[in-house]
């Protein structure tokens, strides 16, 4: 890595590339300062299919890559020569989509002679918080929820010690929102739609099942999630009502469904805080956009004496800035760049924060 600018207080300018799902994200940070965060989303193209189509997403990444790189540099007011290092998501995610970012990042690194850091997408979500004004304290529990993942982590050191406590054993929480929205005849993506129609609904009107929350699940699936049964229960309830010729109380169904999801997510997250004696909870991922998630989290944090962190929404959904931020933290803690031989790993475990770190010389 270049030592040209190295010195006391020097912070590297890192460009991060993220293509694990349907957002082409390029972000630029200087140390823990956000300089640019540009996202091109192919969400509209997926809407008519009712979910992310991997090949459609990958094609969109290819077309969006250079315009997004250009826009991010313009937003930061920098030229490509001002970048000190490049970071890229290696996984987990959709493999064809990931490969577009990996190919671009490697070529850009060789073209510019800059070091390249291949990083974990989920840890990137945690890394987004580095860009907040006040420093995040470790250890922390982190709950990452989106259309692609539902993971509960304990983060003892952002660049050295991340452990997966639990994850969904079937659908991601965001997927459940999409599917229930469809049951209610609402468009994709479901999250904002459910939020919209739940307004004024009674969250206690219908008691929908909470997955993996029974006594027998306390051991094996203590921190795992399941939303498939909930989704089916909502569909069955709506079908029964329709068969009986009743008018569907959309607001109540949406509010009650949302309450079940929020309840399970947060019960398990705060349970982890209590179990581990860690009074800190970080939320990340697109589902954080859901107003009810934020509201209930704030209430429970208050009563349980837990410090709640929620990065701004633009840093919660998939983005390149969080990847750049994690890259900058790896550099600051003395990690060496990745070798050029890594690939896209759709199932990269969260314990692998950086991929293929170059061996010490």
């Amino acid at each position: 890595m270049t030592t040209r600018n190295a010195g006391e207080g020097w912070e590297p300018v890192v460009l991060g590339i993220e293509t694990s799902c349907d957002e082409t994200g390029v972000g630029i940070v200087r140390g823990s300062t956000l300089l640019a965060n540009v996202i091109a989303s192919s969400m509209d193209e997926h809407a008519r299919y009712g979910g992310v189509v991997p090949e459609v997403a990958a094609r969109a990444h290819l077309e969006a890559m250079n315009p997004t790189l250009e826009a991010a540099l313009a937003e930061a007011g920098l030229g490509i020569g001002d970048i000190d290092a490049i970071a890229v998501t290696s996984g987990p995610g959709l493999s064809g989509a990931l490969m577009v970012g990996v190919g671009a990042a490697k070529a850009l690194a060789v073209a510019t002679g800059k070091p390249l850091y291949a990083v974990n997408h989920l840890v990137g979500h945690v890394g987004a918080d580095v860009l907040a004004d006040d420093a995040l304290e470790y250890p922390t529990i982190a709950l990452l929820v989106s259309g692609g993942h539902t993971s509960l982590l304990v983060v003892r050191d952002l660049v050295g010690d991340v452990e997966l406590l639990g994850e969904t054993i079937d659908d991601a929480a965001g997927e459940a929102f999409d599917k229930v929205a469809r049951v209610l005849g609402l468009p994709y993506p479901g999250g904002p739609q459910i939020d919209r129609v739940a307004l004024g609904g009674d969250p206690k009107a219908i008691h929908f099942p909470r997955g993996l929350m029974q006594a027998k699940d306390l051991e094996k699936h203590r921190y795992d999630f399941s939303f498939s049964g909930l989704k089916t229960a909502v569909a069955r309830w709506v079908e029964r009502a329709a068969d009986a010729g009743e008018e569907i109380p959309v607001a109540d169904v949406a509010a009650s469904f949302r309450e079940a999801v929020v309840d399970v997510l947060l019960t398990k997250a705060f349970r982890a805080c209590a179990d581990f004696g860690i009074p800190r909870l970080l939320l990340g991922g697109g589902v954080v956009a859901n107003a009810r998630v934020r509201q209930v989290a704030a209430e429970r944090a208050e009563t349980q004496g837990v410090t709640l962190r929620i990065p701004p929404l633009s840093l919660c959904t998939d983005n390149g800035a969080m990847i750049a931020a994690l890259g900058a933290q790896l550099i600051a803690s003395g990690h060496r760049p990745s070798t050029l031989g890594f690939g896209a790993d759709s199932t990269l475990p969260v314990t692998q924060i950086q991929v293929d770190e170059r061996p010490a010389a």
Partner: protein
Amino acid sequence: MLLAIDTSAGTSVAVVDGDTVLAEGSTEDTMRHAEVIGELIDLVLTEAGVEPDALDEVVAGMGPGPFTGLRVGIVAARAFAFGIGRPVVPVVSHDAIAFEEWSAGTRGPLLVVTDARRREVYWSRYELAAAAPLRTSGPGLCVPAAVPHPEAVRIDATQVGAGALGRVALLHRSLGRADDVAEPLYLRSPDVTMPGARKRVSQ
């Protein structure tokens, strides 16, 4: 001087100066484009003793080729060009195969055929005249039994050499031919099934 990249079959990268291929690195592996692309670019630049800044352009093989791998080379070419602030020159990958045949002295009608997976093939027809090879039809996609142009000499290729890709780009330019293939040549729509009516969950 240019860098040429093609991942429509395996992965091939070359540094080309005029009519000379200074360095070429390839692998026939059709599953590891993302893994090898960075090392191959680095390798050919080192072998050619060329700094990225000394390159005038980057030639990208636009296919036809199976999606996932094809994209890796195109995005790498575009990002590399972005990194050095030089243009990307898109070229039909089959043109490189025809160019190699032509360079070896073959003349007359030629049909280039490559694997498209899923029991289909890509094809392009060329006329190899003394002055230059010219694509007269294609690229197209079809099942093996429906490959057209039986009058042409058929060549089934498993590799696209980036050296030839770079040289054919320069030949086209010298002839004033434009390579106007801005979009990747997938020749197939994405595999998507439109959601039908939602199925009932209860009986």
